[in-house]
C-alpha cells in the first residue's frame, strides 16, 4: 500500500515539473514577441493608432467582410450539414474530405483561380473577397456544426417535432438551431477570427482590410503598425473570450454542449438506437 502511494506521489511529483517547463517554453515563445513588440512600439504609439489615416476604413471593411462571410457560410453550411446528417449519412465522410480542401490548397492558388474566372466588376472588391473567405471558412464551419449535430439525437428530435405537427422550417428553427447554439457560436468565433486576420488573399485581391492596412502602415510608421497589431490581437482575443463565455453560460442553463473553439462537447444524455 505504502509503496503504491509512494510511486503515485513520485509520479505526481514529476508531472508538475514537466508541465511547468512546457508552460514556460510555450509562454516565452508566445509572450516574448508580444513584449518585444510592446517595447518597440512604445506606449505613446497606441493612442495615435486610432487617428491614423485609413485605420477606420480598413477596420470597417474587415468587419463588413466578416459579417458577410459569416452570413453566407451559415446560410450554406447549416442546411447542408443538417440535410447530410438526416438524409445522406453515408455522404458525411465525403463532405468532410471536401470541406478540408481549402486548408490543403494554398490561398494563392485559390485566389489566382478565382481571379481568372470571376467577372471584372467584382475584382478588387470586398464582395469577391468575402466570397473567397466563405471557402476558407467552410472547413471550420462544417466541423463545428457537424460536431454540434453529433452531440444531439438529431433523427429522434426531428421525428418528435414532425410527429407533433411541426413543418420542416419550424423544426429547424425551433428545435435544431436552438440546440446547435454552441456549435454555431464556435463557428462564428472561427469565422470572425479568420476574417479579421487573413492577409494573403486580401492583399492579392487588392482590398485594404485591417491586416493589409497594418502591413501598409508598417512601411510608413513601424511603431504605429506594431501597436495596431497588438490592439487587434487583444481586441480579437477579448471578443472570442466574450463569445465563449456567453456560450458556456447558455450551455449550463439548458444542459447543452460546452463551447470550445474547435469542438462542442456533448452533455446531453442520449441512447443509441435500437
Amino acid at each position: 500500500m505504502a509503496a503504491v502511494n509512494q510511486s503515485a506521489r513520485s509520479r505526481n511529483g514529476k508531472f508538475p515539473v514537466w508541465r511547468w517547463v512546457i508552460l514556460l517554453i510555450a509562454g516565452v515563445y508566445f509572450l516574448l514577441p508580444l513584449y518585444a513588440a510592446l517595447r518597440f512600439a512604445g506606449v505613446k504609439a497606441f493612442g495615435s493608432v486610432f487617428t491614423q489615416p485609413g485605420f477606420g476604413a480598413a477596420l470597417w471593411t474587415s468587419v463588413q467582410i466578416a459579417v458577410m462571410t459569416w452570413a453566407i457560410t451559415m446560410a450554406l453550411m447549416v442546411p447542408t450539414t443538417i440535410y447530410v446528417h438526416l438524409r445522406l449519412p453515408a455522404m458525411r465522410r465525403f463532405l468532410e474530405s471536401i470541406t478540408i480542401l481549402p486548408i490543403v490548397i494554398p490561398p494563392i492558388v485559390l485566389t489566382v483561380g478565382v481571379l481568372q474566372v470571376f467577372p471584372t466588376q467584382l475584382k478588387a472588391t470586398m464582395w469577391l473577397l468575402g466570397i473567397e473567405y466563405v471557402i476558407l471558412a467552410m472547413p471550420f464551419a462544417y466541423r463545428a456544426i457537424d460536431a454540434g449535430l453529433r452531440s444531439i439525437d438529431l433523427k429522434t428530435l426531428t421525428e418528435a417535432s414532425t410527429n407533433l405537427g411541426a413543418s420542416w422550417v419550424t423544426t429547424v428553427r425551433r428545435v435544431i438551431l436552438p440546440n446547435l447554439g454552441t456549435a454555431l457560436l464556435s463557428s462564428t468565433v472561427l469565422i470572425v477570427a479568420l476574417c479579421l486576420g487573413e492577409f494573403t488573399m486580401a492583399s492579392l485581391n487588392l482590398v485594404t482590410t485591417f491586416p493589409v492596412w497594418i502591413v501598409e502602415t508598417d512601411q510608413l510608421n513601424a511603431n504605429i503598425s506594431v501597436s495596431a497589431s497588438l490592439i487587434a490581437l487583444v481586441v480579437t482575443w477579448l471578443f472570442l473570450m466574450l463569445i465563449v463565455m456567453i456560450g458556456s453560460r447558455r450551455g449550463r442553463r439548458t444542459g447543452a454542449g460546452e463551447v470550445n473553439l474547435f469542438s462542442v462537447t456533448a452533455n446531453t444524455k442520449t441512447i443509441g438506437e435500437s
Partner: protein
Amino acid sequence: MATNKVATAAGTAAVAADGPAEGARGGTSVSLRELTRAFGASRALDGMSLEIAPGELVALLGPSGCGKTTALRIVAGFETADTGEVLIDGKDVSGMPAAKRDMGMVFQSYSLFPNMSALDNVAFGLRMRKVSGSARSAKAGELLEMVGLSAQAKQFPHQLSGGQQQRVALARALAIEPRVLLLDEPLSALDAKVRLQLREQIRTLQQRLGTTTLFVTHDQEEALSMADRVGVMRAGKLEQVAVPDELYARPATPFVAEFVGTMNRLPGDLGNGGTEVTVLGTTVPVQPGGPASGAVDVLVRPENLTVTPADGGDGIVSSRTFLGSITRLSVLLSGDTELKIDVASIHAAAMIPGTAVRVGIPSEPVLVAPRAS
C-alpha cells in the same frame, strides 16, 4: 403471471378516474393492410395486416429485426410502405405527411427538446396547432399533472431522470389529443423498477383516455401485461394476434410458443396421419396446423408436464429452483433431453437433484414442430 395483477390495478384506476378527460378522442380505428417494405435485400415487412379496434392497446412483440418498428414507423408516417395501406378510421393515410397525421409518439431514446422546459415540451404540439399561449400552458400543465410531474414543469430535460423524461414525452404525445398513440419501446432504456411503474401508468392513462394505441416491444412481459391483444411478429409477418392468455395457452405456431414464455421440446413420433403423436410413452392428440409426417418435437409448457419420483424412471432431477409457491425442476431424460417442469413446492421437497423420476404428459392436444436439428 404478473398479467392479472397489472390488469386489475389498471382496471381499478380506470374506474376510479373521474371519467374520460375532456376532448379525448376514443373512437379511432387503425387498420394495416398487406404492408410490405424492403430495405435492400431484406424484407422488413412481408404482407403484414392488423386491425386495431377503437380504444384498444395492441402490442407488437418480436425479436429485433422482425419488422415491428418498421410497422410502427409506417403508421407514424416516418417510413412508407412499398405496397399496402394504413387506414385510420377507414381513410387511407399513406400519402399524408407525418406532421399532419395527429399521432402522438413516444420514442425509445430520450426525445425531449433539450432547449425547452418540460412544460414547453408538452406545449409544443399545441403551439404547432396554434393554440393560444394561456390555453396552451393550462393544457400542458394539466398533462404534466396527469403524469405526476407538475413540480418539474420548469425543469429542462437534462435535469430530469430517465423515467421522468419518458413521462414528459408521454404527456407531450397525449397533449395533442392524438388519434392514435404510438409507443416505440418507450421503457427499454429505463431500469427495472421505473419500467414497472411507468408500464402501469401508461396503461392506466391509455384506458382512461381511451386512446387507440400501438405499442412496440421486444419484452414479452411488457406486452402481455399491458396489451389488450398482442401480435407476435417474425420476419415481417404476424404469426399470431391474440389476447395475452390465449397467446400463452394456445400459441398458433411453434415460433410463438417458444417466443412467449418457457417451452419444452420433446422428441415425438407422429401417427394416424399427423393427428396424434406419441411422446413419453403416451399418445396425445395434435393441434391442427403442424406437419403431417417426419421427425417432430412436441412443445409443452413446464406447468403442463407431470413428474413423480419413481425408481427406474426415465429421468433424473438435475437441479431445482425455488420460486415461491412453485419450484422449477430441471429433469434430464435419457437421450440428453433437458426439461423444465414446474411443480407445487410442497411436492418438490422429495425431489432433490439426483432423484430418479417419471415424467408424464396429460392427454390434451399439443403443438408439434419439425424436429430441431
